C-alpha cells in the first residue's frame, strides 16, 4: 500500500470566526475538515472559558498548493486583526483522491 504525502493545515482561531474561516477555506477547494474546541493562552489573550469565548482548532488535509493558499489567506485576512495562528505539517495518507 502506497502512502501519499499531503499537508495538514491547522488553524486556531476565535470561535466566533469559525464560520468565516470555513467559508473561506471551502472557497479555496477544501473538501473536508475537522473542528475541535481548543483553549489556551497566547500573546493576545487567555481564551479558556465560554464567557470570553474559546478557540476553535480547524484541521484539514490538502495538497501543498491549497495549503499555501490557505496560509496566505489567513495571513491577509485574519492574522493582523485577530488572535489567530495557522501552520502546516507533513502527513501521509491513503486514498489520496480524498484530499
Amino acid at each position, binding site marked *: 500500500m502506497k502512502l501519499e504525502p499531503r499537508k495538514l493545515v491547522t488553524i486556531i482561531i*476565535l470561535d*466566533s*470566526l469559525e464560520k468565516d474561516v470555513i467559508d473561506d477555506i471551502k472557497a479555496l477547494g477544501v473538501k473536508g475538515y475537522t473542528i475541535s*474546541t481548543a483553549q489556551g493562552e497566547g500573546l493576545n*489573550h487567555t481564551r479558556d*472559558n*465560554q*464567557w*470570553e*469565548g*474559546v478557540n476553535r482548532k480547524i484541521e484539514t488535509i490538502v495538497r501543498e498548493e491549497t495549503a499555501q493558499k490557505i496560509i496566505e489567506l489567513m495571513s491577509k485576512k485574519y492574522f493582523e*486583526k*485577530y488572535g489567530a495562528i495557522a501552520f502546516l505539517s507533513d502527513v501521509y495518507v491513503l486514498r489520496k483522491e480524498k484530499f
Partner: protein
Amino acid sequence: MDIIHELTRTFANPLVLAFILGVFASIIGSSLKFPEGLYVGLTIYLLFAIGLKGGVKLSNISFLDILPSVILSITFCVLSPIWCYWILRKFGKLSVADSAAIAAHYGCVSAVTFSACLSYLENRNIEYEGYMPALLAIMEVPAILVALYIAGRKNAQTNSSMKKIIHELLTGKGSILLLGGIFIGLVSGKEGYEKISPFFDAPFTGVLTLFLLDAGIIAGKKLFDVWKSGVFLFSFSILIPIFHGTLGILSAKLIGLSSGGAVVFGTLAASASYIAAPSAVRIALPEANPSYYLTMALAITFPFNVTLGIPIYYQISSLVYGG
C-alpha cells in the same frame, strides 16, 4: 427604611451568595470550572424560559398597551450609546474603537441581571408588567448597531458589513431563544404553557443560581483586570448604570408603567451586556481591547447591579412613585 436590614436581605440571597462563592473559589485558585456544555445549556434554558414566560403573559395584552414601552426602549438604546461614547472619548480619552465597544455594551442589556431583578421583585411580591421580556429582546440589538455605526463613521477599522452584523445579531442564540420563546408562549397561551411549566418555572431560580456561580468564577478571574482598569473606567462602570437606571425609572413613570415595572425597566437600562455585545464586538471591532469592555461589563457592572444596583433602583422607584 432600614438600610442594614435591606442589605442583609440582599446579601443573604442564594443568587448573590452563589456569585460570591464563585469569586471566592476563583481567588483561592480552586479547580472548580464549568464545562463548556453546561454553560451553553444553562444559557439556553434561561433565555428560552424568559422568552416563554414573557410570551404567555403577552398573550393577554394588546399591542397598543405595550407600544409606549417599545418606543421608549428603542429610544433609550439608540441614544445611550451616543452619550456613553462621548463620555468615554472626552473624559476617558479612550480610542474610537474602545469607546464604541464599551458604548455598545452599556447600551445593550443583560438577561441575567434582568432575571435577578424579577426574582428580587417576586421575593417581595411586587407586581410588574408581564411583557418585560419582550423589551429585553428588543433592547438586545439597537445599541450595538449604533455603536458600530459611530465607530464606522469615525473611521475605526470595522470589519464586517452592517448587513452581516444585523444578521449575526438577529440569528444569534439570544435572539432566537428569546424571540422564539416569546412566540411559542404567545401562541400556546396559558393553557399550553401549563403542560411544560413544571420544567420552566420551579427550577428557574435554581438554574439562575448555578449560572451566577459560573459568572462569579469568571468575574473573580478578572479581578486583577479591574484593578488595572483605572479609576475612570471603574467609576464609569458604577456611575453609568446608576445614571441609566435612574433615567429608566423616571421615563418609565412618564409613560405610565407601574412602580415594579419601572424597577425592571430601570434595571434593564442600567445593565450591560456580556453575551450578545462581546460576541458582536469581537468580530466587528477587533482592535477594541476585550480586557476593557468585558472586565467592565462582567466583573464590575454585573456584580454591582445584582448586589447593590437592583435594591438601589427599587429605592429610587419607591421615591419617584412616592411609595
